[in-house]
């Protein structure tokens, strides 16, 4: 039985803050295939296309027939725990700080033997288990043996919890509470047990409705936050940055113009100023504080969520300048991910299809409700994934893009979808 996480006591302010030591992060190129799949929440191994043998550890030639045609395939992870050990000594700083630590050897029904971290609810060997892949604090995939039937508080397992960014008992900043999506995110975070939700809002004289309702929630504190104003961002960071565990940057400007149907660059500039430069300002101001607290107790700083768009992958010409601004933000978010990695902060990029709001009025369904978007974000935080494609449109476009990005580009140009 996993002990449910209790709300931690207040921190003793005279003690030095625990710093982050990453677990071993070196992986060969082929092995990064597991990381790439885990970033999307999947456990994949290579399967030989000629003889079907499943490979582990990852490699360049089939162990059975020497074929080089090895393809990554999702695995069920079902297998047998052959043996387990509890580590009481390690030369590695990350593990040294977290001893004792349980490891296992699992024989997958699919064939190979895997070394895994063991969830606390897995009993002694022999035992049926289910192996999954998760990103560890270094952002690299590790394999975990899970019990076939977990308890209600499975997620609070100390080892597992540190690989995820559960909002429970955490303090979160949502950068724009004035949109329906922002308000849905706030509600979802409160429901998920967040301790404090700071909700940013700009241009206070423009009342879009809904902000009063969420500001009535006891966890919510409104903070003036205009991502186009570097000094304002700096001021907010100075005030709350040292307490924020999760940043959710959902502020965006969305217009529906391409190149030819709107003269001038002012609209595109407004999109870039929030969607791209807003992220840059926010990251410059809040990044260091988050990194400094990435090992600060059970509710350490843990994640940065960017609301991007599936249009970031491939330009949607009817919303062409918006797409470009999201593509710029996506590239910058990858830079942010690299810069946050040494501190063990997870950067989560969310690529929704059209949200059911006023700027997507002309988009045919299916459209993503603000509630589903919010729920997908909370799930991503809990699952510890990196890239999220919520909704049917996002899923479909992702598939088409992976299959052949050039074909998708042409389809969007010709058919507009």
């Amino acid at each position, binding site marked *: 039985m996993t002990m449910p996480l209790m709300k931690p006591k207040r921190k003793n302010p005279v003690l030095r803050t625990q710093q982050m030591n990453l677990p071993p992060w070196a992986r060969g190129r082929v092995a990064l295939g597991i990381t790439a799949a885990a970033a999307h929440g999947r456990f994949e191994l290579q399967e030989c296309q000629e003889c079907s043998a499943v490979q582990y550890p990852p490699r360049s030639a089939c162990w059975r027939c020497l074929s080089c045609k090895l393809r990554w395939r999702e695995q069920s992870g079902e297998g047998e725990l052959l043996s387990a050990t509890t580590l009481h000594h390690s030369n590695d700083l990350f593990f040294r700080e977290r001893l004792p630590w349980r490891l296992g050897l699992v024989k997958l029904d699919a064939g190979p033997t895997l070394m895994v971290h063991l969830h606390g609810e897995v009993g002694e060997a022999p035992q049926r288990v289910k192996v999954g892949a998760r990103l560890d604090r270094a952002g690299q995939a590790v394999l975990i043996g899970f019990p076939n039937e977990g308890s209600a508080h499975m997620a609070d397992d100390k080892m597992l919890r540190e690989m995820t960014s559960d909002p429970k008992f955490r303090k979160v900043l949502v950068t724009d509470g004035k949109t329906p999506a922002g308000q849905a995110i706030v509600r979802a975070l409160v429901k998920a047990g967040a301790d404090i939700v700071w909700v940013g809002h700009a*241009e*206070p*004289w*423009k*009342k879009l409705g809904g902000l009063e309702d969420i500001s009535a929630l006891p966890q919510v504190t409104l903070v003036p936050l*205009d991502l*186009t*104003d*570097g*000094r*304002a961002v700096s001021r907010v960071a100075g005030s709350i940055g040292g307490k924020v565990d999760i940043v959710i940057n959902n502020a965006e400007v969305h217009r529906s113009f391409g190149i030819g149907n709107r003269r*001038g660059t*002012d*609209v595109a500039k*407004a999109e870039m100023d929030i969607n791209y430069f807003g992220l840059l300002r926010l990251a410059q101001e809040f990044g260091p504080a988050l990194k400094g607290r990435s090992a600060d107790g059970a509710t350490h700083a843990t994640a940065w969520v960017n609301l991007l768009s599936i249009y970031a992958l491939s330009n949607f010409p009817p919303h062409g300048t918006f797409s470009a601004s999201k593509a710029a933000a996506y590239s910058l978010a990858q830079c942010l991910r690299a810069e946050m990695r040494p501190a063990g902060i997870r950067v989560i990029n969310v690529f929704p299809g059209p949200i059911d709001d006023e700027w997507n009025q002309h988009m045919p369904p299916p459209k993503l409700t603000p509630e589903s978007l919010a729920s997908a974000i909370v799930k991503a935080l809990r699952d510890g994934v990196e890239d999220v494609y919520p909704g049917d449109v996002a899923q479909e476009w992702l598939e088409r893009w992976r299959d052949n990005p050039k074909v998708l580009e042409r389809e969007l140009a010709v058919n507009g979808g």
Partner: protein
Amino acid sequence: MAAERENTMSNTDNLSGAQLLLGVAGALASGRIRVIDLTQTLTPEFPQIALPPEMGQCWPFRIEEVSKYDERGPGWYWNNFSCGEHTGTHFDAPIHWISGRDLPNNAVDTIPVQHFVAPACVIDCSPQVKDDPDYLLTLQDIEAWEAKHGRIPKGAWVLMRTDWSKREDPEAYQNFDETGQHTPGPSTEAVRFLVEQRDVLGFGSEAIGTDAGQGYHLRPPYPCHYYMHGAGRYGLQCLCNLDLLPPAGAVLVCPPLKIEKGSGSPLRVLALVGDL
């Protein structure tokens, strides 16, 4: 009172322009003429005019350090800033409005510069605005002012004092609700009188626009912009310290930036006020 004024002016008729100017300089130095700043400070927090989201928007004031005696520039401090032509305390040129688009010398770089120094008449509507943010300056308000202070001279600014600038909270300053903005301004009748009967230089307001917040619903929409700029006159917005000015006798100095074909610009508005 009008006679008194005429007397004062005739005494100076025999002085040369140069001597008059020296006199002003001396009076400024000795404090007999004071300089009052009618300008709001340009900060990112100061609100800007907000149009419906489908329209192009006026940029807010934004400022970013280039360096501050640091690795980006060790011995100096400077900033880059951006804003719209109509951000903060600003000047409206006739070319700003469709009714003034074809007039000669209608942009900030072509307006005759002598217009940038002109007398100002300050009409106090602050008691009425206290009860009604949508208050419109009426013809009656003008007539009442003229009864006390004399006829509004040709070529003078008419400034509507409302104490609106004392609303320091941006939300209160903009004063939006679901039906739009609620700020004071002139009525159509008042504007037409000032333009057609008094040939004024322009209209000045403490609020975000020369027209009232609900001006869109007057006929024609935005009558102050429409008639003033349509007659080649000017506008001043986001003024402050109008409560420090005498109802008559102040002289405004308000040259906008010399922007090529500019429709307006943020500027420093100064009032010269002489002791009596």
